[in-house]
């Protein structure tokens, strides 16, 4: 299984990848993208099984990335990992086609529970 982690912060990508490992997803292939535009290219080259994306990024936000993917007909499994977990954000995420929103800070258990539902 291939998981794409999208975040403009290398530190946060490291945290997400480490937490994936702690949550039991260490055997999966993990790719990284530093922004929405880079992520789009990676996805268009070969759709991953899951995209974990930050919301707020320069050039192309996570929401814009998801909206672009859905507009292109992609049904790739997509979830947000973001510092904002308000009901409004969760609603926007769901409306755009995200399967979940994990708010930071997060634990390996929280990630495991969420990802087990979709993978």
């Amino acid at each position, binding site marked *: 299984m291939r998981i794409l982690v999208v975040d*403009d*912060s*290398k*530190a*946060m990508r*490291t*945290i997400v990848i*480490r937490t994936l490992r702690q949550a039991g997803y260490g055997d999966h292939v993990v790719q990284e993208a530093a922004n929405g535009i880079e992520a789009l290219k990676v996805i268009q080259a070969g759709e991953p099984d899951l995209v974990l994306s930050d919301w*707020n*990024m*320069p050039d192309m936000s996570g929401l814009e990335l998801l909206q672009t993917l859905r507009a292109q007909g992609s049904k790739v499994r997509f979830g947000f990992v*973001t*510092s*904002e*977990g*308000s009901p*409004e954000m969760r609603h926007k995420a769901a409306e755009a086609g995200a399967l979940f929103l994990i*708010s*930071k*800070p*997060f*634990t390996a258990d929280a990630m495991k529970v969420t990802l087990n539902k979709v993978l």
Partner: protein
Amino acid sequence: MVVAENDICQVTQDVWASVLGLCVRSLPTRAPAFGDENSLTGCVQITGAFEGAVTLESSTELARRAAGIVLGVDPVTTSLEEIRDVLGELTNIIGGNLKGLVPGPSHLSLPAVVDGVEFRLTVPRSRLVTEATFDCEGEPLRVTILRGIENDKDDE
């Protein structure tokens, strides 16, 4: 609308423990200025129903330790760019959580990080609302919430 010092303390403690595995101890009084030591300040702005900013000030030593923990390397090997990245992300997470406590809807900016010696980050046309000062393994840390003064007029 008031975000209490207790709220800042709770959020900061949770973030520091969850992301870094470190404890922060609240200090009852405003910590001495960072003075002549190197320090960093991260800042995220909040716009919308609430106009303001959240800042996170840290000694470079503490930020370097945080970078070492996050990246899984010896802190002394971390670059200034990596230290800035980590502090920016910690600011983002704290800011995002505090944003949930102020009136919405509102938008959180990307973090900006400044570093140096004897500097002061100001957000024009804003005032300090609440701040909390901490000690983390002997190093100072401070989180502030600023509010745009135009918001004060909205309350009148």
